[in-house]
């Protein structure tokens, strides 16, 4: 085996799996470099309202991890950063990392003065564009690192100077440039996770055209206290509380024309989201359209519990087409009940598409050669000697599996460095 020139470990992706890998490796005594594309850590989990299996708010679990990171001098965090190349071999990797400018330095205290001075607004990426946010912003309430970001459009615009002058701590640096750093690494953990499948590609569902057709990740934001509606589930077209809600499972999943695989989490996500609605609206009627409910192992208890709710109906059949009533913006779902061989048109005030997980590696592959499966997931955790894939980079996974996977990848990375 190759001799390790350094004991450092690079972790790419600051979501649940990458965070776990970074913390575990650092606590085992290794120097860790954690690279995150967003201006904050926490990934998709930070955008949830509640997460499985205990239905806790994500800040609870993330906060513990952030604290472990903060107190550990062995971890170096790069946000707004991307790995552009990896070369070398086990124990001896040469890595370049591109650091995009944040335009805010470490002097930021999070006082919000820059945001107050700014009038320019951008679509809020944290809320999947469902609301607007100032172009000088904190990505979300508990963002880690707790530091503001300036949108590049603001920096180029005429307001930049005014915003800079509003900062009492001299934390804004409008001349900040993108830079590239070269590092020598002993092992690499790749955990760049997933993105929700683009629902606009499901052309018969009208997502993007019909305002009351949303996706499951948007539902998480609607239910979240720090979301665009402060946690009230309201339909986008008129801000009304929906009385009938439909969940469409396998929206673009298990479908040869879209994602041919099962993401394994969308069934439970919809079951979970149906409980959000039931908590807020005790009289709301919910229909879950499914092909098969995949609630395995312990999760079956949750399924059974939801099934007992008389206001939640399970309907076996894949919705083929959604049409909108122009006057009310209500939706009509055309679907076959496959248990009775009967064709139905079912109205709903709000439709939630349970879209699946598309691996980010399918669009931005690891910048070195390795094997992927047919769908763009890295084919195995041990992708190459000294290079490991974890979490949703490797397979669709829930939060707890991602934690386990990240820990496993950290262990593999450590083994590749110390074994002889």
């Amino acid at each position, binding site marked *: 085996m190759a001799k390790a020139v350094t004991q450092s470990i690079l972790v790419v992706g600051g979501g649940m799996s990458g965070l776990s890998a970074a913390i575990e490796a650092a606590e085992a005594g290794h120097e860790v470099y954690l690279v995150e594309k967003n201006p904050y850590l926490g990934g998709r989990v930070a955008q949830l309202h509640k997460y499985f299996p205990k239905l806790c708010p994500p800040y609870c679990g993330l906060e513990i991890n952030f604290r472990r990171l903060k107190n550990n001098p062995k971890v170096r965090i790069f946000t707004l950063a991307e790995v552009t190349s990896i070369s070398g071999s086990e124990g001896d990797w040469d890595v370049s990392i591109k650091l995009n400018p944040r335009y805010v330095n470490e002097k930021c205290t999070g006082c919000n003065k820059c945001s107050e001075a700014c009038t320019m607004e951008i679509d809020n990426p944290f809320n999947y564009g469902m609301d607007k946010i100032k172009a000088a912003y904190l990505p979300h309430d508990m963002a880690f690192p707790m530091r503001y970001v300036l949108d590049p459009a603001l920096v180029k615009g005429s307001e930049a100077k005014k915003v800079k002058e509003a900062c009492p701590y001299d934390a804004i640096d409008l001349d900040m440039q993108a830079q590239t750093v070269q590092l020598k690494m002993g092992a690499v953990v790749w955990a760049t996770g997933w993105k929700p499948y683009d629902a606009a590609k499901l052309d*018969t569902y009208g997502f993007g055209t019909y305002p009351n057709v949303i996706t499951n990740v948007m539902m998480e934001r609607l239910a979240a206290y720090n979301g665009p509606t402060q946690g009230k589930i309201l339909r986008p077209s008129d801000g009304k509380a929906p009385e009938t809600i439909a969940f469409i499972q*396998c929206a673009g999943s*298990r*479908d*040869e*024309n*879209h994602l041919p695989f099962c993401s394994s989490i969308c069934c439970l996500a919809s079951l979970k989201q149906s409980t959000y609605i039931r908590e807020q609206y005790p009289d709301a009627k919910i229909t879950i359209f499914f*092909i098969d409910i995949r609630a395995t192992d312990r999760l079956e208890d949750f399924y059974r519990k939801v099934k007992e709710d008389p206001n939640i109906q399970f309907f*076996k*059949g*894949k*919705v*083929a*087409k959604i049409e909108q009533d122009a006057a009310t913006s209500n939706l009509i779902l*055309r*679907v*076959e*009940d*496959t248990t009775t*061989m*009967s*064709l*139905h048109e079912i109205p709903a005030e709000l439709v939630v598409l349970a879209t699946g997980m598309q691996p980010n590696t399918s669009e931005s592959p690891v910048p070195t050669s390795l094997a992927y499966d047919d769908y763009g997931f890295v084919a195995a955790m041990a992708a190459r000697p000294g290079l490991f894939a974890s979490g949703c980079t490797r397979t669709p996974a829930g939060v707890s599996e991602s934690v386990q996977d990240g820990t496993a990848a950290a262990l593999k990375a450590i083994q590749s460095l110390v074994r002889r």
Partner: protein
Amino acid sequence: MSVKVDPNVMKDLEAFGLKDAKKCYHCGNCTAICPLSTPENQFPRKFVRYIQLGQKDKILQSPEPWLCYYCGDCSLKCPRGADPGETMMVTRRYLTSLYDWTGFARKFYTSERFEIMAISIVALLVGIGLLVFNTGKPDWQHASLNSLWPKENIELADLGMAAVLSFLLLSNVFRCFRFVMGDLAYKVPFKYYMDQAKELILHTVTQKRFNECTDRKQWLVHLLIMTGYSSVFLLVVVFLRWFQRDQEIYSIWHPVRLVGYYATFAIMYGTTYAIIGRLRKSKPPYKNSHPTDWMFLILLQLTTMTGIFIHFTRLLDWPFATYFLYVIHMMVAIPMLVLEVPFAKWAHLAYRPVVLYLLKVKAQYQQEQPAEASVAVAA
């Protein structure tokens, strides 16, 4: 009520060209995406189910295969690549063979060799027939078909053929009627059949249901082939004495000539479009081509082309070429008619409007006699 299961249905249908139905995981997307599927008559998933479960009797009694025009939306949107549109097409072939009491249709669909042999034999018989039965006094100065094969004689042969074909086709249509109407077959008073007769004519002529498909081009192409074929069929079988003429050529605006030109254009455009589509597999209905699909298009196009050539050799007054091409023309056209009309693809020309008509009759009957109808359904 017991349900009979025939475990060989899937295997049997594979002989008719079924390929991907096993991939279906029964999500119901196809049935809900189909623009023609209705709560009363829904398809196509139902048939994938019947086939997988071996419910031959249910298939036999179903009108739905004839309500599907194979626009291909179901196959395009199928998440499993199970090609439900093709399943419907294969079911129509299967039904054609089940309606046919002679057993000939089945052979025709399941054996390519049999199909080619049958067509060759009929072609040969026609060729020999024309060489043996003629006046023996051809006009070598001018192209005069009537000098060799007088139109009166051909007309007689035509009518004889039409009688045989009608008998075969109508007997199969009768069987179709029995299966589709089930217990109601003789219960429904004649009055309802009369009331709805206009539906039969309307659907035969316009095929307007086809126009409800998303891809309307298919309806146009199909309508061109159908009207072109039917009008020329009328010309050569019923109006032959005005069609097969030698000396005086009609003026260009004469109805017989106009109809002839329309038919030629319509068939050539339609078949060429379909052949190119099938070669390129340009859309779902053209993706899977059964040998009978090719045979039908090729025979139809050959018939039309030889017909065009005869038209010109006659105008140019070339006797030998005219007589020679006439024999070839008949050797292609007659097998196509004799074999395809009662036993193969052409038969759908009758089954589609008849089934639509029967559904209307049934609906009117059940509407006007709700109590009785529900008893019949329960039985």
